[in-house]
């Protein structure tokens, strides 16, 4: 313990010393760490961040469901479902392969340009759809790994009780699969949260564009620092909450060891 503390202090002390002694440090500090500007800029950028929050909250809720659906389709056994599985594979390959920013540009610019009756022309709408399409592909692979990690004997036990294929999936396979993939699921959701900044390419004044506008007004990068802290302020508590959920589930199932 004492060694850990000492080595940590020495390491970060040396690092701080080196960085602050660098020739450009004063300019760097003035550009990024202007605390009065930080406080002044925070409310405005935080308000713009609400657009990002809205986008990722909606996208995450939708992706949780669509990705699970896609993973289940891809896990359907037997020759009858070959076309379904093939479609699911094509979808995943396509949307994992194309850069997210391109999907956002194509849908966000293209769909409103069609001027179709009944098709929304809001950039935020199409940006959210793009993120859902891309992240459904990623997250479905996470779910699929979880489904495949549940031993076939679990399904056999459920089916032997007379449960249908769907009932076995619903009550036995998926609950175990989902528990196992919560950490990688969270990983993808953090990625999704950060990728909401890509919506800026459509000209929506969300957190990144707002920070950029402010930066252009007084040539100070502290506005970007505000944006960065807003993202981190969301993801870190979420990560700790997930850790806590996983630990609680494990405790509930195994605490106390073997009782006889």
């Amino acid at each position: 313990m004492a060694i850990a503390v000492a080595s940590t202090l020495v390491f970060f002390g040396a690092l701080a010393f080196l960085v602050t002694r660098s020739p450009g440090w004063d300019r760097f500090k003035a550009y990024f760490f202007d605390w009065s500007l930080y406080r002044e800029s925070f409310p405005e950028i935080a308000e713009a961040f609400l657009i990002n929050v809205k986008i990722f909250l909606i996208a995450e809720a939708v992706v949780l469901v669509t990705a699970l659906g896609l993973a289940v389709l891809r896990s359907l056994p037997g020759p009858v479902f070959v076309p379904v599985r093939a479609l699911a594979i094509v979808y995943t390959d396509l949307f994992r392969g194309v850069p997210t920013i391109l999907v956002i540009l194509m849908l966000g610019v293209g769909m409103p340009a069609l001027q179709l009756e009944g098709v929304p022309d809001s950039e935020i709408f199409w940006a959210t759809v793009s993120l859902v399409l891309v992240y459904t592909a990623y997250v479905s692979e996470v779910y699929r790994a979880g489904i495949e990690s549940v031993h076939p004997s679990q399904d056999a036990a459920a089916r032997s009780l007379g449960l249908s294929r769907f009932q076995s999936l619903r009550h036995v396979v998926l609950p175990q699969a989902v528990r196992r993939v919560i950490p990688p699921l969270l990983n993808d959701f953090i990625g999704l949260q950060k990728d909401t900044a890509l919506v800026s390419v459509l000209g929506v004044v969300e957190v990144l564009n707002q920070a950029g506008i402010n930066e252009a007004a007084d040539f100070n990068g502290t506005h970007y620092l505000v944006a960065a802290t807003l993202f981190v302020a969301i993801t870190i508590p979420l990560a700790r909450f997930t850790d806590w959920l996983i630990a609680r589930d494990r405790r509930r199932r195994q605490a106390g060891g073997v009782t006889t």
Partner: protein
Amino acid sequence: MSTSALAIEGLHKSFGKLDVLRGIDLELAEHEVVCLIGASGSGKSTLLRCINLLEPIDAGRIVLHGDDITAARVNVDRVRSGIGIVFQAFNLFPHMSVLENVTLGPRKALRLGKKEATGRATELLGRFGLADKRDEYPDRLSGGQQQRVAIVRALAMRPGLLLLDEVTSALDPELVAEVLEVVRELAAEGMTMLIATHEMSFARDVAHRVCFLDAGVILEQGSPEQIFGAPREPRTQQFLQRIVDAGRL
């Protein structure tokens, strides 16, 4: 003539090029307890899995209480809900409490109400000394307790036939007895059972009939006294001699 509980005729099953079952004929009367013995790989487990329709068969038929369950357009789920199977590795659902494990089948497959399913489960758990475990998770139970829960889970469906697949093979020696005791009790109550086992002394005193499986066929069958006391086939004699040499009989 009353219909038998189970009738298997000319059952064949292969996995790729491997012929595991090569023409099985077997009949079980109601309330009869039949033990399947034989070396590992002789097809005991596969036979049980075929009867429960967990494995599709290649040829032959399986008739359960007069109904051909291997015919086309049979409701597989309904057939399975009438046959209990207990596995060597328990296969309890780790994310569910003991009570949830036992009530899942009655609630989802038999569509019983929560109250009725819970009542049924509580009664069975009580009967087999597991009443105080109903809210535990399987990982917190000993192997013997887990296997008893697995048996209770099968019994909660009120099956007309119970299949036991090496139910003590994954247990520590000191836990075997508590599980076999449960099976003895079921036999005494008249449960129709087909039991694949390596426990020869258990087979000798619980079985009405013993079948020796060898290379995918029932090579010899008879009363426990005949099979264990005076086996006719040389292969049966060899198998039993190996068991005796291993100190297991």
